[in-house]
Every structure is written in structure tokens, then in C-alpha cells.
């Protein structure tokens, strides 16, 4: 008993073929969008690879680009199939390719599901890479004369301005590193010498932040130095002051940006998964409807289309038995080979 069978006459078949052709061309556009989303995501990762230690994984964007190209190709071919299906001659030429093509589409759908899962799981990897990268970026902020790191200051400043954040977790991360290069410190000055000697590692630490932490929305000019010293500034209490510098940490800010991108891409992949699945089902109906025509010479005769030839359980049992026979055939071959060896 076929699974989900439907009756078709000529008009219904033609309508199905036309509708399916349009859906396939829509799916080609979806494939192009997937491709461009992959490129966009790759570019975004590259733009900020410096604050991720040049260590970020490009797996998701590369897969997206591949899936986008595959989708374009597969769906264009599917559209051609639908276009030719109404002409019996062309269709008989295409018939042998139908089964492998539909299996390929099912495999492609499985790939889409895998990609969807990756989009949601790889966010953890991005978070960890970001945490490590930002920590190092803050450490190397002052090394504007070291080759390979001379643009770290500019990158970190622009990141803090663009994402409206300060430091890794919050602004106090800047208190723990020396972010002023020793080239600009007057080592003969007593104040400087005191500070450098006051900690074990000999670093010039202070309770200040770079200018890029400043919040333009603050009503007063930015206070970046002596942040914890209330008496250094008129009418200032660092415990209640909220608008002076950005209070969010950059790890949180940048991660929520990338997480937003990845979630949107995941939602789009889910939509395209349902679309491709619908296309495959439609193509199955169309091909079975054209194969089961009662009178092959008369195009106007009735026919039946279905999703699966036998019921769902029977198809599954068939598949399992096929897999078993495949395994047993291998064993029989091996058994056949060894008596030969034993005989000689």
C-alpha cells in the first residue's frame, strides 16, 4: 500500500510540475543567499581575528559557502528536471538520473541539519577564543613598536569604541596590566619609580583606562585617570558614577554580536531545510505520477503519485534487510576465498 498516495490527471500533473519548477528557482535564490551569508560571516571573523588571537575557527563560514554552492547546483538541476518532465521524450532520458538525484538531495538535507547544529554549537568555541584573545590583546596594547603587534592598540581602541565596551569583563581589567609603553615613561621620575617598584613584576600599574573606554553620553568630560580616587576630581563618586565610561565588558559585547549573527544564520538554514525537503517530496510525487500512467501513449490519462512505494514500516524493514544482505554477501565472499586458500 503506497504511503500518502494522490490521484493525478493531466492538469494536476502540469500544475505540480510548474509549481515545483518555481519552488526550485526560489531554492536557487536561497542557495545564493546562503553563499553570501557564508562570505559575510567569514569577512566579519577576519575583520576581528586580531582580538581572537588569529585562532578562530572558519569551519562554519566555509561549510556555508560550500552548502550555498551545492544548493545552487542541485536546485538548478532539479528545476531543469521539472521543466523537462512534461515532455515524455526528455523525461525518459532523465528518468535513470532521478533516483540517485533524490538520494543526493536527502544527503544534502542531512548536511543542512549538521550545519544547523554546528551554528549553535560553535558559539561556545567563539566565546572561548574571544576570552583568550581579548586577554592577550589587553596585554599587548602597549607594544606599538613590536612587529606583528603594532596595530593591536588601534584595533582594541576601535573595538571598544564600536562595541561600546571596556576591558575583558569590565573596566577594572585595565588596572591589572601596564598599558602605557615604557618608552613614554620617565624612569628618572620618583612617582614612576615608586609605582614600578610597588608590585612584584615591576609593571607600571595605575587606576586608569584608555580614552576608548569613554562614554560620549556622559554629561561631564571623561574621567579616565585616578578612577578610584574620589578626591582627585570635583564632585565625583566612583561608586555611583554610571555614565562616565562604558560599564560592559568587551567579551560580552563582541560575543553577543557574533552570537546574533550565528543564530540568524541558523534560523535561515532551518527555513531552507524545510524548503529543500518540500522540493524533494514534490519531485517524488511528480516522478511517480509520470511513471504510473495507465496508458503511456495517452498523456491525458489518470495516474497515481506517492511518497513511498510501500508503507513506512515496510520500507524501513526493506532497507534493514538490504543492509544485512550486503554485510552477509561480504562474509560469504571471505568464506569462499579462505576454503580456496586452504585447498591449495
Amino acid at each position, binding site marked *: 500500500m503506497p504511503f500518502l498516495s494522490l490521484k493525478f490527471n493531466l492538469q494536476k500533473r502540469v500544475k505540480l510540475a510548474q509549481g515545483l519548477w518555481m519552488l526550485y528557482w526560489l531554492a536557487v535564490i536561497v542557495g545564493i543567499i546562503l553563499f553570501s551569508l557564508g562570505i559575510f560571516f567569514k569577512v566579519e571573523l577576519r575583520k576581528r581575528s586580531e582580538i581572537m588571537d588569529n585562532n578562530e575557527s572558519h569551519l562554519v563560514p566555509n561549510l556555508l559557502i560550500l552548502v550555498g554552492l551545492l544548493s545552487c547546483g542541485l536546485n538548478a538541476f532539479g528545476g531543469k528536471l521539472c521543466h523537462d518532465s512534461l515532455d515524455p521524450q526528455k523525461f525518459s532520458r532523465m528518468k535513470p538520473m532521478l533516483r540517485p538525484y533524490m538520494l543526493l538531495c536527502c544527503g544534502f538535507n542531512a548536511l543542512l541539519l549538521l550545519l544547523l547544529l554546528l551554528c549553535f554549537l560553535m558559539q561556545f568555541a567563539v566565546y572561548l577564543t574571544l576570552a583568550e584573545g581579548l586577554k592577550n590583546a589587553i596585554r599587548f596594547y602597549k607594544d*606599538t*613598536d613590536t612587529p606583528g603587534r*603594532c596595530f593591536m*592598540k*588601534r584595533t582594541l*581602541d*576601535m573595538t571598544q*569604541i564600536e562595541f561600546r565596551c571596556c576591558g575583558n569583563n569590565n573596566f577594572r581589567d585595565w588596572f591589572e596590566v601596564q*598599558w*602605557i*609603553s615604557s*618608552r*613614554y*615613561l*620617565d624612569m628618572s*621620575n620618583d612617582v614612576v619609580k615608586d609605582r614600578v617598584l610597588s608590585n612584584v613584576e615591576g609593571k607600571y600599574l595605575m587606576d586608569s583606562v*584608555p*580614552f*576608548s573606554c*569613554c562614554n*560620549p*553620553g556622559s*554629561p*561631564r*568630560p*571623561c574621567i*579616565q585617570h585616578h578612577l578610584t580616587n574620589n578626591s582627585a*576630581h*570635583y*564632585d565625583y563618586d566612583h561608586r555611583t558614577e554610571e555614565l562616565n565610561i562604558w560599564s560592559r565588558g568587551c567579551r560580552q559585547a563582541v560575543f553577543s554580536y557574533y552570537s546574533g549573527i550565528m543564530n540568524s544564520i541558523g534560523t535561515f538554514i532551518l527555513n531552507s531545510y524545510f524548503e529543500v525537503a518540500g522540493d524533494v517530496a514534490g519531485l517524488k510525487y511528480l516522478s511517480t505520477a509520470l511513471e504510473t500512467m495507465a496508458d503511456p501513449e495517452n498523456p491525458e490519462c489518470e495516474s497515481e503519485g506517492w511518497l513511498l512505494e510501500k508503507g513506512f514500516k515496510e520500507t524501513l524493514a526493506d532497507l534493514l534487510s538490504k543492509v544485512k544482505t550486503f554485510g552477509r554477501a561480504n562474509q560469504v565472499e571471505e568464506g569462499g576465498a579462505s576454503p580456496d586458500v586452504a585447498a591449495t
Partner: protein
Amino acid sequence: MALLVVKFDLKKRVKLAQTVWFMYWFAVLAGILVLSLGLFFKIELRKRSELMDNNESHFLPNVLIAMGLIACGINAFGGKVCYDSLDPTKFAKWKPMLKTFLVFCMGFNALLVVTALLCFVMRIPFQFTLAEGLKNGMKFYKDTDTPGRCYMKRTLDLMQIEFRCCGNDNYRDWFEIQWVSNRYLDFSAKEVKDRIGSNVDGQYLMDGVPFSCCNPSSPRPCIQYQMTNNSAHYSYDHYTEELNVWRRGCRDALLSYYGGIMNTIGALVLLVTMLEVAVTVGLQYVDTSLSTLANPEDMESESEGFLLEKTVKETFTDIMAKMKAMGKGAKVEEGGEEGVATVS
């Protein structure tokens, strides 16, 4: 003797009508482009109207929007006329209006040229609005508690960061105004009292700039205070220091940004004008080729299409004669009435 005569048979007429129809739809898209350029420019002006004293002239974007809408309407109508031109019954409907429509199109094309010229010329008054607005913007930077001006600081800071500029002409503009609000000045401190006493207006002036002037590309942390005092900072010479703060003035930066937008829009409007002239010429040929059919009943007969019925000089003298006749007609009417008045 007609100007630029071309012979037409049925095939050529059909081809001409199809080409001109296609061009008209292209021209509709061009009209939409002009409309969206006008909207974009209007939004850009609105975004920064605070820096222009809310005084900027919206004349140019409004004209662009109007021209875009009219262009869409005219071109859609022209496309419809071309589509109908191949069917004699439908074309007979439009025939009486065509001459006026073509004259209207020519007037519209002249207006488009004027609009393009405006785009290039409006830069000059814009420069003055910008200079005045920025000067006031800097004056009101500190008034974050005055209603109506409390966001001036944030707007100015964000603008200096985005356009990479400082002050009106350069960073020294900030030395001439008080940009720290009195709320944050300790009037009991000697230093503050000295500074205020040192100038006629009683303003707290200093050789410092806001944080938004800082250049992130500078290898050393930003020096915003005591900028002209070399001894206040280690290894610092304000005459040779180039990367510390942005050197460009905001008036220049904004002017080149908006000037670029206006030049681009002007160039695009000129291109659209050329397209409009082409479709007007095409429609004139379609109209004349259908009017001069050798045998009006036979669609396959030959015909002639031309640009002007007589030569340029003769057409010009015709128009002048018509205008004089209209003028004399008005005079005769007045003379007749007076004659009647004196008699009665």
C-alpha cells in the same frame, strides 16, 4: 524638409516600439533611483541637523523626491503608450494627447538638468550653514543640563569619532571656548580661580581637547590635556607630534562627505536626464511613424518617422509667430472692448 527622417516598415516599427517600451521601464527604475537618492539625502541631513543649527535647507532633497515621483509617472505612462502603439484602436485613444505629452516631457528634461546643476551649486550655501552650526555646537558642548542642548555633547563627540576630525578648523578651536561645565569646576581651588580671572569673559579656558579628538592610531596613550606644554609629558613635542589627535577640522570633513554625496547625486541625475531624452526622442519617432502611414488601413505599409516636422530654424520661427499671434490676439480683445465701451 523634416529633420532626421528615418524610413519604417512594419517590422522596424514593431522593433522600435518594443525597444522604446523596454527603455521606458528602465526609466521608471531610474525615477525610483532618483526618489530614493532624494530620501537618502534628506535622512542624512536630518541625522546631523543638530550640528547645522536645525537650519539646513531641505530644498534639494525635496526637489529630488518630487522629480523622482514625476519621472515614475511620466515614464509609466509613456511605456503604456508604447505598448498600445502596435494596436491601432488603442493607439487612437492616446494620439490626441501625444503632442502635449511630448512637450511636457521636454520641459521635464530641462527641469532635470536644472536639478543636476543645483546639486553641484548648493554646496556653497551649505558650507556657510555648516560653519555656523559647528561653531555653535562647540559653544554649547558643555550645556548638558540645558533643555534642548543636552545631547549636543554626545552628538559632537560621536561626530568627531566618526569623521575623524577635531574642532571647526583644527583642534585649537577647543582652546578658545570653555567646554567643561561649571558644575564640574571647583571654584574654591586656586588654579580654577586663576584661569577664570586670566581672561576678560571669565571663562575656564585650557589647552586641552575632549577625548573624542583622540586618534586611536597613535602609538602612545592619548594626550588631551596640557597639549602645548612640552614639559608636562615625557618625550613630547607638540610641534612635531602628528598622530596624537585628529588634525583635520570637522567643517572640512563634513563638507567633503556631503559634497561627495551631492556630486554623486548630480552625476546620476545627469545620466537619468540622458536616458529621459533618449526615450522622448524614441516616443517622437514612434508617434510620427504611426501618423505618416502611406495607407492608414494597411498596417504593413511603409511610413516615415522624423524628429521635427520642419528644420530647426523653421520650427523656431513658427513658435515665435505663434507667441506673437497669441500676444496680438490678447491686444485685439482689449482694443475691441474699449471700442465697445466708448461707443456705449
